[in-house]
């Protein structure tokens, strides 16, 4: 297959995909095309999208690649979509941060860090599929241990958990 042709197919698939696409998945669909070619074409697409006249970006997120609108156009897109500002509250963000950095972690452990009850917040996070119960802790009561999901990575534009900025060390 011609390089141009593969590139065109990549763009089509990225457009119709309903989540981040892995290189592996591309290889499966475009049988016979090697990973290196696909990687190279992804880089080409990414750099083309950097032109100021382009309104999309190709981000590496949650283990795959995904087309997203350019950040500079955020306000216009919001206006167009009829912006309800989906701002996450501080309680939600803080709880999410604690789970992200300390996973797997129990509710009681989160509460001892935040100093407040997090029942409602955990329910919200579970509903939004940003965290999930990953196991149970081997202590009396066998409480659930929570961890983050792929949706969490997508929400915050993270390739994987190692991309989380390192926690600031405290100077004790």
């Amino acid at each position, binding site marked *: 297959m011609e390089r141009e042709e593969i590139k065109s197919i990549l763009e089509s698939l990225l457009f119709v995909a309903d989540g981040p696409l892995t290189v592996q998945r591309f290889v499966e669909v475009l049988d016979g095309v090697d990973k290196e070619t696909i990687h190279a074409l992804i880089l080409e697409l990414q750099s083309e999208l950097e032109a100021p006249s382009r309104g999309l970006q190709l981000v590496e997120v949650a283990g795959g690649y995904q087309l997203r609108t350019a*950040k500079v156009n955020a306000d216009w897109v919001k206006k167009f979509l009829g912006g309800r500002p989906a701002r996450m509250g501080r309680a939600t*963000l803080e709880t999410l*941060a604690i789970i992200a950095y300390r996973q797997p972690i129990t509710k009681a452990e989160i509460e001892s860090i935040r100093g407040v009850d997090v029942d409602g917040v955990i329910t919200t996070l579970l509903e939004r599929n940003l965290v999930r119960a990953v196991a149970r802790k081997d202590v009396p009561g066998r409480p659930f241990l929570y961890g983050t999901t792929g949706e969490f990575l997508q929400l915050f534009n993270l390739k994987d958990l190692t991309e989380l900025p390192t926690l600031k060390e405290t100077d004790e």
Partner: protein
Amino acid sequence: MSTHVETEIFEGPLDLLLHLIKKNEVSITDIPIATITEQYLATLDLLQSLSLDVAGEFLVMASTLIHIKSRMLLPAGDDVGDDDEDQGLDPRDELVRRLLEYQRYKEAAQDLDQREVLSRDVFTRSAAPNEEAGPRGFREVSVFELLAALKRIIDRLPKDTFHDVTLEKITVREKMTHLLDVLRAQGSVLFEAFFATANSRMEIIVTFLAMLELVKVRAIRIVQEQLAGPITIEAAAVMDSVSEQAVLEQVEEEPYGA
């Protein structure tokens, strides 16, 4: 202390303490406990006088602060010594540890919030069906489309049949059985065709309710090949008598036409 109204809503006692520490420009590791305790209690008073709910955690922290303050007043080594395995340590240590830990995650949360957040800063395509993909099976029909179709059927009905409604005793359950029978025999049936035999408004509504019940338990699927095209009812799964019974039993026996 100057009495200016705190408008900020605190996430919890630790958050309030961090705020006070910052406001006083003091170090977390060397908290002037008397001053901070005084301001902490004053803030709780203020919140209460504003009729804001002060959660229990705030009060627990208040007593912790008072306890630490009292221990700070004692000469070192001459501790009251009931709950202190930590004798000789700074009574503030545990609080400092908690504050530092909480502060780290508070900052981490701010970092997360500054990233390109999906559906706030950047957007993905809505999962719109892609026309170029061709017929990829049928698309499922929403209840609103069903209602529109139902309205078409009712509108087509002659007005004078409205009166024999009360003479009938059709139950939703009967209609469900009937629909399942038809589907077992034919596999699928056109939405409008299924209503063709109905001769009263009530029967149509009962039939419609029966269909919705079956959709709800996924016994049938209602699909449409293209927008505004004909709507088809099809069996979603092969039903054996047990599961059919289970589906039917969930409907009350009340006849709707009575």
